[in-house]
């Protein structure tokens, strides 16, 4: 049931990409526990604006856990303490009166900070542009049911396709690797007949782009999958490695 809690909020503030950042501490009092984490930040921002100060910049949009826009490293966890949920799906009842809550941006060389808690995840788009598609022009498709696909494969492809592109996997990884994200897309297409034709080109192009953009190597720590809000499985990375080996062998 609803109660109110008071706590200390330590927030990373940084005026711009090149500026030096620091933690600022705010006393938050009487926050209803049925407020979402982002609504709590809205309250903070409202208070800052009332005092004539600049609000804390953070990314968000759908607030339903699907757009992948929200981020935040909360008390050492990307998307906070809840598992299988994004920051926007986190409610204050997860916290207690008197807590200190630390909020930082994603930290990764490939995701430069724009301001405060907002980072630039453009690198993810660039990886997708390198090969995350089936080369097919609008029009000219055959009837959808002309190509039966086993339910098992379709369901598995759907699980991989559920990645929201949030970047928590990169933020969680000590190497800053984007393997889970890349493998989710590679897997979706590898599992479906539509994706098979270009499979080899795709995996090589996406991995090459990933390396070029400064993401680290995967050393199989599994931190990514543990923190992924959409439960994207590590087996996707195994599949990617197989696809890559296959592609290299046939070179």
């Amino acid at each position, binding site marked *: 049931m609803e109660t109110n809690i008071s706590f200390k909020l330590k927030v990373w503030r940084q005026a711009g990409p090149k500026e030096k950042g620091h933690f600022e501490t705010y006393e938050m009092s009487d926050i209803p526990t049925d407020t979402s984490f982002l609504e709590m930040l809205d309250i903070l921002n409202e208070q800052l604006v009332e005092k004539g100060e600049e609000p804390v910049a953070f990314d968000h949009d759908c607030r339903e856990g699907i757009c992948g826009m929200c981020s935040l490293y909360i008390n050492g966890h990307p998307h906070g303490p809840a598992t299988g949920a994004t920051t926007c799906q986190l409610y204050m009842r997860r916290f207690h009166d008197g807590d200190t809550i630390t909020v930082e941006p994603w930290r990764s060389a490939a995701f430069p900070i724009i301001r405060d808690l907002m980072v630039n995840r453009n690198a993810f788009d660039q990886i997708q542009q390198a090969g995350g*598609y089936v080369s097919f022009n609008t029009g000219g498709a055959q009837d959808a049911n002309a190509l039966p696909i086993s339910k098992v494969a379709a369901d598995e492809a759907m699980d991989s396709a559920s990645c929201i592109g949030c970047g928590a996997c990169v933020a969680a990884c000590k190497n800053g690797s984007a393997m889970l994200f890349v493998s989710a897309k590679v897997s979706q297409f590898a599992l479906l007949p539509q994706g098979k034709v270009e499979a080899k080109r795709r995996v090589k192009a996406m991995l090459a782009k990933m390396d070029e953009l400064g993401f680290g190597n995967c050393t199989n720590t599994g931190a990514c999958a543990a923190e992924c809000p959409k439960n994207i499985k590590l087996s996707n990375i195994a599949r990617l490695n197989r696809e890559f080996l296959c592609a290299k062998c046939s070179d």
Partner: protein
Amino acid sequence: MEETIIKTAQPVIDSRIPEGPVAEKWTNYKAHQKLVNPANKRKLTIIVVGTGLAGASAAATLGEMGFNVLNFCIQDSPRRAHSIAAQGGINAAKNYQNDGDSVYRLFYDTVKGGDYRAREANVYRLAEVANNIIDQCVAQGVPFAREYGGLLANRSFGGAQVSRTFYAKGQTGQQLLLGAYSSLNRQINAGKVKSYNRYEMHDIVMIDGRARGIIARNLVTGKLERFAAHAVVIATGGYGNTYFLSTNAMGCNCSAAMACYRQGAYFANPAYVQIHPTCIPVHGDKQSKLTLMSESLRNDGRIWVPKDIEEAKKLQAGEIKGSDIPEERRDYYLERRYPAFGNLVPRDVASRAAKERCDKGFGVNNTGQAVFLDFSEAINRLGIDVIRQRYGNLFDMYEEITDVNPGEKANTIDGVDYYNPMMIYPAIHYTMGGIWVDYELQTSVKGLFAIGECNFSDHGANRLGASALMQGLADGYFVLPYTIQNYLSDQITVPCPTTDSKEFDEAEARVQKNLEHIMAIQGKRSVDSIHKELGHIMWEYVGMGRTREGLLTALDKLKALREEFETNLFVPGTIEGLNIELDKAFRLRDFITMGELIAHDALNRNESCGGHFREEHQTEEGEAKRDDENYFYVACWKYGGSDEVEPTLIKEPLHYEAIKVQTRNYKS
């Protein structure tokens, strides 16, 4: 379009509907329209604002065809457009279930669902291309749900007797958008589409009476930038956030649509706003948005409030819980009022019935603004496992937000088990109104096109579930890429305008002045506090039940609110660099204008139809009463030259050839 008629006369609107029977119009059109040859496509540049289903599909397809495309969105990636949040599914008339579906039936259901206020020719075309969308998406690798035999699965949705909805778990919008985004990425990689993320379009640039470019602000640097093109396509989504609280994403806005309106594009049917009955209720004044609970819950959930007002008061005071009230003291008001359809009446009807109970004091929750959605009967009948299989993810989502588990037994009275009921309340969800477009999806401004939710579309006064995704992709993949060529065919010798002309100077100066004005107010109130007040006015007076008196009050209050905005707004920071408060302030100014437009249209429309309910116009049983004699038209509003001046109404009469106009009935 040149305005040849003076204000006093009724201008004639040309919707450019092709000749012939409704089923042949699109084929005829395509056979006779003008095309642009491949060599010339390379010379033409098109701006597409928006990367939702409509914008991404259009930008990708135009790129594939060989045009040069500039594509904009306000999020950090095209993949995050609001379309990503759509859950339920997308309609098509494949008839894979062999249940008697056809293009005609999809057409008919959509027109009827829209309460006979949509344009026949457009809806028929929509139904006609719907099947191509499914083929297209499967070819892209969209992982739709499948049967064990490997063929595509379907589910049923409201307003139809056939099973025609295709879906990908509860994430259909996500998968369709990622499909369009992948095609878009291929074109970006090929250099045919240039992608501008974190850019917000602020104005249209007009040269010699045609749309020739836009002014957009880079939201990171705060700088205004100029972009020129041969044509501009707007795909910026709906205006639901005028009401502050809605199921829309936080960034959804109507600023691009308002910029078009101010440049002379008519705005059609703004009063048609869809209110979804099953959303998680407002829980406090800190709330930022409302969460939709899928319509499918109404298949097994029963909606009720207490029969006794004293019990409602106790519930509101938190002295008792819903599960303390036994069966015989519950009022299942939908089953009582609509015995034939019961809990499965259409969205607009269910929403109004909830409001009626709450207005009379029977609402639950500490606010009194909620009703119960109860699964006790279904769980007792089918067992919790079956119910969890059907709705487990929704129960979890509900619990995460409210801390109440609807699958948990809470009480046993006289041997009957009672489970925690959900609490739900209607919320703003979708906007049927939008920028007026002709059959070619061109607005009343030459060279300016509008697609997706931001046009006034094909849904009439009410949209059926799973039809918005269909429309967005139909517009973007299959309609606009054809029709825009009819406009561009005589532009091939026109060079792309340069951005150093006086028209661009003036447009940029106009935007700069607006931004400086907002920064200079330096009053006391935050953007959100004024936006919330706007939301209250809209919900109270321009919401589910509207009256002449209430609408007049709303217009007065909105005028005062505009004054408050202009004199007492406070935006911190500077005009340079990233400024999230300035972004919101710019959008709020347009929401206020939009609010007034909705109220004007609602006041003008002296009838009840679809999402627009005027309390003066109802039957004795409280049902919506249309007036086909006087309101069988699309209401197009023309900008008055300044936001303070009332807009002028221009009517586009509707003509039905294929369908007989009837009254919708859900009682028997």
